[in-house]
C-alpha cells in the first residue's frame, strides 16, 4: 500500500501555533491567578508575567496576520457550511464506528469546515474580545485622556476579559481533545509537529503530494 | 592716596588676623545625637541586648568616662569608636558613620559629649534609652 504525505503546515505556521498555544496556556494560568482562583506565583509576579506574555502574544499575532495576508493563507479560514452537517454527524456517530472521516485534507483546504468555524470564532471573537478588554485594563490610567472615562467601567472591562478567558479555556479543552479525532488519533498532532499529514494514495489531490513506497 | 594704601593694608591685615583668631570648636549636639543613637545605641542594643541611655550617668560621670577613655571594662579605648578608621570600617552598613566619615575625630567626640551632657541624669533634658 502506498501512503501519501501532504505538507500542510509550513514552518512559520507551526511555530505560530505552538508559541501561541504555550502563551495562551500561560496567560490562562497567570490570568486566573490574578483573577483570584488560586495562588501560584503570587499576585505581583502573576500580573507581571501575564502582561509580558500578553504583549508577546500581541507581537506574535502581528506577525501571524502579516503572514496570513501575504501568503493568502487567510483563505483557509473563510467559513463554509458545506459538509458541516457531515462533520457533526461524524463526531456524533461515525467516529464511534470507525466510519471514514468525511473530510479530505488538501493543501488548499487544510481545515475541516468545523475547524474553520471554530478557529474563525477564536480569531474574530475570543481574540479581539481579549485584546480589547486587556488593552483597556492595562491602560486604565489613560481612560480620562481618551475620554473613555464616562462610559467604561473597570468592573465590566474585567468581567468581559474574564468571560473571554473562560471561552478560551473551553475552546482549549475541546481543541485538545479533537486533536485525537483525525484519521488516526495521532494524525493531527503529528501534522502540527512535522507539517506533514498522511493521506491514502488514492485520495490524494494533485498538488504538494509526495509519494513514498511502503 | 596714602590713606587709601593704609586702609587697604589695614583691611588685609585685619582680615587675616580676625580669621586666625582662636576660638574653640562649637559642638553640634544634634550630630552627636545621630552618631550616639546609630552607632552607640544600636550596637549596644544588638550586641549587649541592653540599651545605654544618656540619663544613666550624670554630666560629671560622662565627663569622667570619656576622660578615662575605657570601653569594654577597660579592654579598649572608647575613642576607638570615634576614629576615622572605625567609621570607615562600618560605613558600608552604618549610615551615620558614612555621613560623618570625614568629620575630625575630636569634633565628633565633642558632638557626642554635648549630646550626653544634655541628656545626662542632671542634664538640661534627660534622655532615656536614646
Amino acid at each position, binding site marked *: 500500500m502506498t501512503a501519501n504525505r501532504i505538507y500542510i503546515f509550513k514552518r512559520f505556521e507551526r511555530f505560530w501555533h505552538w508559541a501561541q498555544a504555550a502563551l495562551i496556556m500561560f496567560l490562562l494560568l497567570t490570568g486566573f491567578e*490574578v*483573577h*483570584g*482562583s488560586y495562588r501560584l506565583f*503570587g*499576585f*505581583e509576579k502573576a*500580573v507581571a508575567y501575564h502582561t509580558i506574555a500578553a504583549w508577546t502574544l500581541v507581537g506574535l499575532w502581528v506577525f501571524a496576520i502579516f503572514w496570513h495576508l501575504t501568503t493568502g493563507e487567510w483563505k483557509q479560514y473563510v467559513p463554509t457550511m458545506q459538509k458541516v452537517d457531515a462533520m457533526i454527524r461524524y463526531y456524533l456517530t461515525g*467516529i*464511534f464506528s*470507525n466510519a471514514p472521516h468525511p473530510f479530505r485534507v488538501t493543501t488548499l483546504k487544510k481545515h475541516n469546515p468545523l475547524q474553520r468555524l471554530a478557529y474563525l470564532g477564536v480569531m474574530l471573537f475570543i481574540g479581539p474580545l481579549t485584546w480589547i478588554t486587556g488593552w483597556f485594563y*492595562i491602560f486604565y*490610567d489613560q481612560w*480620562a485622556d481618551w475620554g473613555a472615562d464616562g462610559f467604561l*467601567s*473597570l*468592573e465590566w472591562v*474585567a*468581567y468581559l476579559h*474574564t*468571560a473571554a*478567558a*473562560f471561552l478560551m*479555556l*473551553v475552546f482549549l*479543552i*475541546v481543541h485538545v*481533545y*479533537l486533536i*485525537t479525532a483525525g484519521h488516526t488519533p495521532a494524525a493531527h498532532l503529528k501534522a502540527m509537529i512535522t507539517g506533514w499529514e498522511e493521506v491514502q494514495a488514492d485520495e490524494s489531490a494533485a498538488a504538494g503530494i509526495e509519494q513514498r513506497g511502503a | *592716596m596714602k590713606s*587709601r*594704601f593704609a586702609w*587697604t*593694608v589695614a*583691611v*588685609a591685615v585685619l*582680615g*587675616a588676623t580676625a*580669621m*586666625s*583668631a*582662636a*576660638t*574653640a*570648636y562649637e559642638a553640634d*549636639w*544634634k550630630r552627636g*545625637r*545621630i552618631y550616639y543613637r*546609630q552607632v552607640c545605641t544600636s550596637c549596644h542594643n544588638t550586641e549587649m541586648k541592653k540599651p545605654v541611655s544618656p540619663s544613666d550617668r550624670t554630666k560629671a560621670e560622662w565627663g569622667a568616662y570619656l576622660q578615662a577613655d575605657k570601653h569594654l571594662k577597660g579592654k579598649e579605648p572608647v575613642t576607638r569608636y570615634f576614629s576615622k578608621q572605625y567609621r570607615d570600617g562600618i560605613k558600608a552598613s552604618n*549610615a*551615620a558613620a*558614612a*555621613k560623618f566619615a570625614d568629620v*575630625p575625630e*575630636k569634633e565628633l567626640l565633642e558632638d557626642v559629649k554635648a549630646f550626653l551632657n*544634655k541628656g545626662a541624669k542632671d542634664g*538640661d*533634658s534627660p534622655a532615656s534609652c536614646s
Partner: protein
Amino acid sequence: MKADRFRGRLTALMLGGLGVIGIGVGHASMPDSGSTPPVKLNTTADHARFKELQREFKSGPEVTKACLICHTEAARQVHRTKHWTWEFVNPDTGQRLGKKTLVNNYCVSIRANYPFCTACHVGYGWQDKDFDFTSEQNVDCLVCHDTTGDYRKQPGLSGHPASEEREIPKGSGNIVKPVDLRKVAQKVGKTSRDTCGACHFFGGGGDGVKHGDLDSSLSAPDKPLDVHMDATGADFTCATCHATSSHDIPGSRYTPTAMDKKGAMVRGQTDKRNPATCQSCHGVTPHKVQARLNAHARKIACQTCHIPAMARGGVPTKMSWDWSTAGKRGPDGKPLVVKDEKGRVIYDAKKGDFVIAENVMPEYAWFNGHVTYTLVGDKLERTDGVIGINRIGGSPTDGKSRIWPFKVSRGAQPYDSVNMNLVTPHTAGDTPTAYWKHLDWAEAIETGMEDFGLPFSGKFDFVQTEMYWPLSHMVAPKEKAVGCAECHSRDGRLKDIKGVYLPRRDAAPWLDLLGWSAAALALLGVLLHGGLRIVRGWRE
C-alpha cells in the same frame, strides 16, 4: 601722578591678595590648631554677637522684645496665623475651627484648661479666655527658633518656660530646671524637627498620643522610619515640605489636599498651592520603573502604599481613650493607675482606659479633603451610635477623592444628656472644680461650659466618638511600601473599600459560576466522547 596712583593700587591689590592668602591659610590650618573660628554657613547672622542678646533675660517676653528690635514685622506676622489665634474658619464649610473652639476625643478641649494647654501656644501668658491677642511681646519666638533643644514650656505655666526650678507634676520628684534664656536666645536659628516636634510630637497629652505618624522618634529618624527626615540622609525638616513664608505654615490638616493633580512645583509658580503634598515635588507620575503604579495614583493617595504602618519608631500611639471609666480608686482610696507589662499607663483614674499600640496598620477610606466637625454647640441627633468628632468627605465617584490612610482614634467622652451636645470639661489645674483633682464630672463640665458661654443642664453621660487623622509622615523606603497582594486579595487592607474594582479581591460570582460550569461541561463532554470511542474501539 597717574603712575603713582597706579602703583598705589597695585600695592594695595597685592597686599589685599596677601590678606586673602592669609585667610586661606587660616582656614587650612584650622583643623590642626583648632583655634580659628569657622564661618557659620547655616546663617548670615550669629545671634550671639548681637549686643541686644548679650544680657540676662528674666522672661520670654523680654526675649521677644529684643527680637523685635530687628525683626520688626515678625510678631504681627505670627498674629495672623493659626499658631497664634488657634482659630480657623474653614472656607468650605464656614465652620469655625481651631483649638479655641474644637473638641477632640483626647483631652477634649482647652476650655478652662488654658494654663496647661497653652504650653503649646506660640505665645506667653494665655491663662484664661481674656488673653490679649494683639500683644507683640507675648509672641514666643524661641519655641520655634530654638536650636539648643533646651527650651521647654511646661504645662501649667500658660506658655511660659520655667523661670525657676520646679517639680512638675507636683509630688513626682521630676525637677524641671529653669531655661537659660540668654543661651537659647543667642543660639536661635531655623526651625527643626525638634522645635515643631516639641508640640506636634506630643499632641493629645504625650509622646505620639495623637497623630500616630508624628512622635519623638522623628526627631532623629533613620531611613526605614522616614525616607525624607532620615537624619543620616535627606534630613528634611518639617519646613522642607511645609515651606513657609511670613510665618504662616502651609499644609494644615483642617483643609487637607486629598488630590493634587498639578504635578511638581517649579520656581516662579505663583498660584497658592499646598507645597506639602507629595506631588508638589514628585509630580503625578513618579514611578519610573513600574508605570502601572502611576495608574494606581488615580484612585489611591501616595500615603496609602508608602506609609505601611504608623507608630513605627518605638513610640506607641493612643488608639482609644474611654473617659467613661475614669474616676476609679484603688483599695488604698487613691486614684487608680494601671500599667501594662511594659510599664505604660493603660488606665488612669483621671482619664479612663487607654488602648495604645505600635506598628499599627492604618484604616482606609475615600477622602476628598472635606472635613466637617461636630462642634460643642451642635445638637447630637442620637447617642446610641458613634459620633464622628470629624467626618471626612469622599466617595469613589466624586472625582476628587482618593483612598487615604487614617488613624482613627476611638473613645467615649462626656456629653450633656439633656441639651444633647458635647461638653468641654475643666480637667487640668489646681482649682476647686478640676476633674483631675477631684474626679467630679458635673462640676468639671459646669466650669468648662461656663468658659465657653454655653449652658450645661447638669446631666451628663458618655457617648462613643471617633476621629479621623489622615497620615502623611513616617514614609517608608520604597522597598518597604505596601505590596500589591496586601490589597489585591479577598481579605486585604482594602477589603472594605467600595466603588472600585480590585483584581483578585473582586469577581462576579455569577460569571465565575458560568465560566467554570462551561469549562467543566466541556471537559465532561470530551471525556464522555473519548470514553465512548475507546469502549467502541475495544469492541471492534
